[in-house]
């Protein structure tokens, strides 16, 4: 523990230097989800290098959500009636003409029970699409004036590893098929990693920004990577390098065509968390999902 503490301290120092002109200290903070009393916490992740798959990927400093986004947070977004449910549709409370094509939208009403009998509150959001997680980030950004988005895969894995060669005992840190009793668990009940992040391993697998696929302009529904494994998987599949790609089967029981672009019917093992870059990568600025109902 001591050794890792030193490593963290060193990296943190470097990150603070990188943060440079920032007014606020590069420190943990909490913020209230706009329009609600719900708070979320952000943890500083120092700049450094991800060593994975024989590659060395530089990673800039950023903040990452201490916890997976909970239903309490997500439902505040869903309840924002100033935001329309689809592009071109007038929002109930906004008045005026329908919003422009790049307007932020919010989820359509889910069919049946979007929490699949698992409960809500401090449990992580489940079975929302990549598009939905991306739009949540845009909404939170607009409301707070800060950039919030999904982590790139490199950022995600780097933060998960937290500068450690080996994670501690998995059972102390992660909800997996071996201890979760077939259900996603309230966030923050296990031990955090060395950088203070809870549930990166297990509980719900987490959507990432999927930077590699930005070339298609984010116009297709699939595939996008989720990371970290989930409560449905055995311990061996719950690692910082665990990676799965989304596919059509995740909505196989959505009987409508087009299927929902907001809700999966068969992905109760998927959720997400937000990051906030200290200094945004030029290539990631303004990135957003362009998935529509007609997208393949």
């Amino acid at each position: 523990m001591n050794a890792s503490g030193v490593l963290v301290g060193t990296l943190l120092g470097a990150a603070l230097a990188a943060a440079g002109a920032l007014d606020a200290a590069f420190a943990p903070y909490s913020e209230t989800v706009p329009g609600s009393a719900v708070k979320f916490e952000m943890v500083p992740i120092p700049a450094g290098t991800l060593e994975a798959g024989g590659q060395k990927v530089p990673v800039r400093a950023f903040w990452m959500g201490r916890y997976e986004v909970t239903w309490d947070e997500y439902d505040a977004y869903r309840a924002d009636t100033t935001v329309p449910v689809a592009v071109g549709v007038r929002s109930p409370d906004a008045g005026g003409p329908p919003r422009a094509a790049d307007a932020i939208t919010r989820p359509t009403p889910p069919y049946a029970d979007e929490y699949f009998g698992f409960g809500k509150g401090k449990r992580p959001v489940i079975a929302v699409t990549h598009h939905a997680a991306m739009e949540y980030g845009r909404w939170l950004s607009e409301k707070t004036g800060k950039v919030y988005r999904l982590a790139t895969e490199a950022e995600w894995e780097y933060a998960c590893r937290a500068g450690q060669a080996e994670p501690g005992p998995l059972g102390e840190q992660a909800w997996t098929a071996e201890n979760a009793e077939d259900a996603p668990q309230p966030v923050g009940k296990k031990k955090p990693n060395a950088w203070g992040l809870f549930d990166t391993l297990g509980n719900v697998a987490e959507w990432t920004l999927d930077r590699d696929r930005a070339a298609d302009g984010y116009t297709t529904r699939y595939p996008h990577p989720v990371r970290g494994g989930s409560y449905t998987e055995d311990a061996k599949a719950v690692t910082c390098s665990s990676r799965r790609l989304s596919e059509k089967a995740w909505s196989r029981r959505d009987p409508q065509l087009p299927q929902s672009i907001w809700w999966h019917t068969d992905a109760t093992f998927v959720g997400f968390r937000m990051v906030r870059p200290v200094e945004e990568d030029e290539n990631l600025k303004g990135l957003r999902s362009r998935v529509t109902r007609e997208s393949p």
Partner: protein
Amino acid sequence: MSDESRDDGKSRRDFLKVSGATLAAGALRVPAVHAAGSDEIRIGLIGCGGRGTGAVTDALKGASGVRVVALGDAFPDRIEQIQKRLLEFGDKAAVKKENTFVGLDAFEKVIASDANYVILATPPGFRPQHLQAAVAAGKNVFTEKPVAVDGPGIRAVLATHEEAKRKGLAVGAGTQRRHQKGYLEAVQRIRDGAIGEVTAARAYWNQGSLWKKDREASWSDLEWQMRNWLYFTWLSGDHIVEQHVHNLDAVNWMMGAHPIKATGMGGRQSRTDPAYGHIYDHFAIDYEYESGVHMLSMCRQIDGCEKRVAEDLVGSKGRAETSGERWAITGPQPWRRREDEGEVSPYVQEHTDLIASIRAGKPSSELKNVAESTLTAIMGRMSAYTGRLVTWEEALGSPENLVPEKLAWGPMAVPPVARPGTPA
């Protein structure tokens, strides 16, 4: 799904090669009694909205040798939409313009086409008439649930069931739980005594509100109602019939029976804007089976409330809990199952099963079961709307015909919200 690749150019070439080289080895899956090609499934779709489009796709994925030959809808924009959405299936779903039909009589034209597998996916109020016409014309049918909205509709559907049996026609119903592995195994275990004697049952479909379409100036009353069909009892049967029928069907299936009476209540507490027609937003019904077992049924479409879509069966030895994703039996023979990631969608499986039954010359019929489950829901609604105890015979024999005899684009009044305790 890999099924989609079955008919790409590559696999077609493979098939030709194989069938040419190894006919004797039995490479063809066509039953020997049919000449090759005679078992082609030709879909005629009536109702080209989201579910109709989904159902056609499910059928195309569910079996090979399936083609779409005719499309019908009340509205032209629906035909345009579905044609675009089926493009990915290429030739299998390329329907010529002369085989697309628009209007309130579009169903007759689809049925008169060379389709031999008619999919009914309009609002449920039209179902008895469409079922009757399809079976009269000798077509196999896949019908969405529910199959009627009132007693007269159910009587017509039961007569159609008898006619389909006489003619050897297959009728599948969109009660997909009956084609889902978890449900099939749970029901088998219940039948085998895993929970002992059933002493009570519960059925739930509690969720939030659903979509509605804002009225456009050019729409007549009838068009507005049809495009917002959920909210009018003559079209949907109310949400207890349109949606909760799934859970009532599951319990009837597990019980191997339908209830014989219902005492229910309900109301319109939250969704009161006239844009939502005149249906209720919640029901709670006490059903009783002939065995004396009661089923508590609850359904709700109100935002911000507890949700649950599931069934419970309480037995003398244990309990069963079933839902679309998870099934569990507790008691001396405990058992759990979660919907596997590799599972075939039950919406695809129901077509696979139906088409297989047609090709095997053993046409399956689910019409009686779905008619009884639909009437179960109707009986509950009748009790909630009137405040009276309603028996199975009263519901089945009810003279109350909710569907207008003649329909024409134009004015159409919205019935008042039902008030229990007041004379009908």
